[in-house]
């Protein structure tokens, strides 16, 4: 059964090849892969829930040499999320790219991206992680370049350069670690690491490279252009998954690997940066003129919350409270993933139907595209953190823990950030309610895209009302060194 772990990586890789050689059936291949990965993801979740942490070493070598895979509760759930979002984006892409020449280029790259995401989640070895990171970055850059116009190309080039810088720095840190400790297996390293200069430098390099890749303020500047100009399904994956798995990696490193080196001061630096990201991202989102740009800035802000969680989590002592916060972090990441993908997919729909996504000219879109508006509204609720959504519960726990730890600034920032999110999202919805300018010909929604609605529903209703098993899973299985 443990060979299940390799499937989420191997299957899309193979399918990517297949898509390359059989372009006539790319849509079917892509959606079928998506479905299969969802099934595999569910199976892995079930497996982890039933049997505890799973790990597997490929190729029959000893740990430390072969490709080590590892899945705990956190991994399994993230995997399932990425599978679901991948499936939604895949089905959306079928219609989105219909009749475009880029269709054939999209699918192999897309499947490659999915493989990279899975690999990043499952790897338990620093070098494999580096490889996955490179794969992730390159496929993402290529997908970004599929967007129309010069802007997309320019953004893709920026993204490429920055991604390379980040990856190289990551590689440097990996080399430092290997030179000092002689192994790259994370489980082994976790027990070996000591507080000494090399470790410190490695930690700094890891952290800054990943900060860059997951666009933590003030290293976020590349993100809006990329996410706003990529094709809609790609943007969804970039915002919902790519930055998030990078964050996942950072979390893993800090909690599993560098736990002995971490101090509260370090953690609070990340927390403060997260707080700044929330405020700045929200502020920019308020001023954004385009829907996708708004969504992109919102991603920056939402990542800030994850770092707030992070900063509290790494300094908390073991125990029920930490477990609670850990689950809340996961819940927040999940909710944001689903909600943001819904928002980007909806934005794509709007852009395709109306021919633009300028917020000021969206009047009447409520009547023209009710289903899309519904998805947008639900996603908005989840992004703000209003009930009934997963992020409401997650923010609740965050504020509760911050209060009991006495971190008042966290409470203030969360409250303020939520209000700012209200402003930018309800500005969008308010435009939707105002009567149309009637410049464009009336658009009638015939066959609505359902994937954004499904994503938004998961983010609000499912995660809002049925997230309790998440904590149980984490408590039963453990994960993230907890």
């Amino acid at each position, binding site marked *: 059964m443990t060979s299940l772990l390799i499937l989420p990586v191997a299957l899309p890789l193979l399918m990517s090849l297949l898509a390359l050689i059989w372009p006539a059936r790319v849509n079917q291949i892509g959606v079928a892969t998506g479905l299969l990965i969802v099934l595999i993801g569910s199976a892995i979740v079930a497996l982890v829930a039933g049997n505890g942490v799973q790990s597997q070493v490929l190729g029959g070598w000893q740990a430390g040499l072969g490709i080590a895979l590892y899945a705990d509760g956190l991994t399994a759930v993230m995997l399932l999320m990425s599978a679901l979002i991948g499936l939604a984006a895949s089905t959306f892409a079928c219609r989105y790219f219909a009749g475009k020449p880029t269709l054939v280029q999209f699918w192999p790259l897309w499947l490659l991206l999915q493989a990279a995401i899975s690999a990043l989640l499952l790897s338990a070895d620093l070098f494999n992680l580096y490889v996955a990171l490179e794969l992730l970055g390159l496929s993402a850059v290529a997908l970004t370049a599929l967007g129309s116009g010069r802007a997309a190309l320019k953004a893709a080039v920026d993204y490429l350069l920055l991604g390379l810088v980040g990856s190289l720095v990551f590689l440097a840190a990996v080399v430092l670690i290997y030179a000092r400790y002689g192994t790259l297996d994370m489980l082994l390293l976790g027990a070996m690491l000591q507080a000494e200069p090399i470790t410190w430098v490695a930690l700094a390099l890891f952290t800054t490279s990943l900060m860059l890749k997951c666009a933590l303020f003030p290293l976020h500047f590349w993100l809006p252009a990329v996410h706003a100009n990529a094709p809609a399904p790609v943007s969804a994956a970039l915002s919902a998954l790519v930055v998030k798995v990078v964050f996942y990696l950072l979390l893993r490193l800090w909690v599993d690997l560098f736990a002995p080196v971490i101090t509260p001061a370090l953690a609070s630096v990340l927390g403060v940066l997260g707080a700044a990201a929330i405020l700045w991202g929200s502020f920019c989102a308020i001023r954004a003129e385009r829907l996708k740009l708004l969504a992109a800035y919102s991603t920056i802000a939402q990542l800030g919350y994850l770092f707030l969680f992070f900063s509290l989590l790494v300094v908390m002592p073991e125990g029920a409270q930490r477990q609670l916060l850990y689950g809340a972090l996961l819940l927040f990441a999940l909710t944001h993933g689903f909600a943001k993908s819904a928002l980007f997919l909806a934005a794509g729909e709007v852009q395709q139907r109306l021919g633009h996504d300028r917020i000021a000219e969206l009047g009447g879109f409520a009547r023209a595209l009710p289903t899309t508006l519904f998805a947008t509204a639900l996603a908005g609720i989840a992004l703000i953190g*209003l009930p009934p959504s997963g992020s409401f519960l997650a923010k609740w726990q965050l504020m*509760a823990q911050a209060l009991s730890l006495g971190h008042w600034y966290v409470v203030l920032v969360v*409250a303020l950030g939520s*209000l700012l999110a*209200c402003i930018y999202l309800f500005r969008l919805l308010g435009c939707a309610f105002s009567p149309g300018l009637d410049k464009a010909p009336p658009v009638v929604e015939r066959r609505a895209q359902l994937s954004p609605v499904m994503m938004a529903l998961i983010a609000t209703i499912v995660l*809002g009302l049925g997230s309790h098993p998440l904590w149980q899973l984490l408590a039963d299985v453990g994960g993230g060194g907890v």
Partner: protein
Amino acid sequence: MMLNQWLPLLILASSLVPGLLIFYLSERRSGLRTWLNMSGAVLKLLLVGVMIWGVFHEQVYESRWTLAPGLELVLHADALSVLFVTLSTVLWLVTTVYAIGYLERSPCRSRFFGFFCLCVTATVGLALAGNLFTFVLFYEALTLATYPLVAHKGTPEAVRGARTYLAYTLGGGMVLLVGTIWLQTLAGPLEFAQGGILESIPGLDPTTLRWIFLLLIVGLGVKAALVPLHGWLPQAMVAPAPVSALLHAVAVVKAGAFGIVRVVYDVYGIEFSASLGLLGPLGAAAALTIVYGSVRALSQDNLKTRLAYSTVSQVSYIALGTAILGPLATVGGLVHLVHQGLMKITLFFAAGNYAETLGIHRVSEMDGVGRRMPGTTLAFTVGALGMIGVPPVAGFISKWFLALGSVEAGAAAWVIPVLMISSLLNALYFLPILYRAWFKPAPEEWPLDSSAAGPLETAGALLWPPVATAVLALAAGLLAAAPFSHLEWVQLIAAREYR
């Protein structure tokens, strides 16, 4: 027993499910939509009837659902929640009838009625909430469900009004959220219990509790329109009349007031609040609001704005009753929860009728309208006299108990003057309307005369709801002391809150 677990959920579902179905109905299927609306409303009424019976016979109705560790969604029926649930259900039924008549032939009805149902669902959920977390949940949901209703017309004013509404209520919701979380980290899950829960928890710092109380009241005060947090209410007047009616009588404003009642009685406990010295400031805020709202109402020419300021003033009676220590004042405050709803909904229905039938939006246009629309104006008159506190309309009973309570608590020196000033001001802004309507000659031509050639002054669905609520408001006053009256129910609640 299974039913006892499921009944609260069923009551929620009886408006939620029709609401969701209505969203997916096409605009043209008005017959099916009306059927869904009405059957949902009637079903809910029946279920609430069962619940009243059960609570009276000490049945426990409770649904629990764990959302996260330490965060439970609890729906629980106690006497207080049953009071509010009954009020909202009855008035929802009436308002649905009215809204169906009011929105005949207007666009986007599916969206409207969908959110209408959601709004009531949120209100009922809030009424049935068994702990502060659940309350906050539905409190926010109510904000969301109401926003599209306020913005429904889509005009720039409507969008602006809705935006203001949202800014205030979401801000307030956030403050409430912070307060609730803070309290919960100190005191654990805040399950409502008669007599309060905080007193029995050891080791709580009084100063912290005071700060938390401030946060909670500010958060709730936004919806309850306590001065200076009332600014959204007059602006939300751009909403269609049935929405205003629901907003002012049942849903939003009442939710805030109900929340204040819950926090003071069932979280802090009234006696504990008094010992913390919290009631004085709350009472002062309520008194200020009562007078300020009335004063502002005086100078409004737009009928609905005048009514809105009147709401600002009247709803604070509930807070005032809450802020006075003593069972009689409690009775006064709680009974006003019902009375204000009945009277204000009547007034808004009538205002809607004037606008819809004759195109009258301003007080200065109302000359002689009583002769043209006697039924509506009669209902309006009953509502207005009730607001002033003229017996036997319900408002008198509220004022009577509030005044008695203030004497009991030794606060008569400031409460009775406030009540008197408020009544006088109410008279000053309501009686001129009545004078115009009944005594002045009608103009040659109305701004708009869309009344059909039917036998009634306006469409039946518009006429009967205000008449029905006016009759209810009269009956609530006349039959106050009757057995099984709402007053008796409220007295039961008050008796349980003081141990």
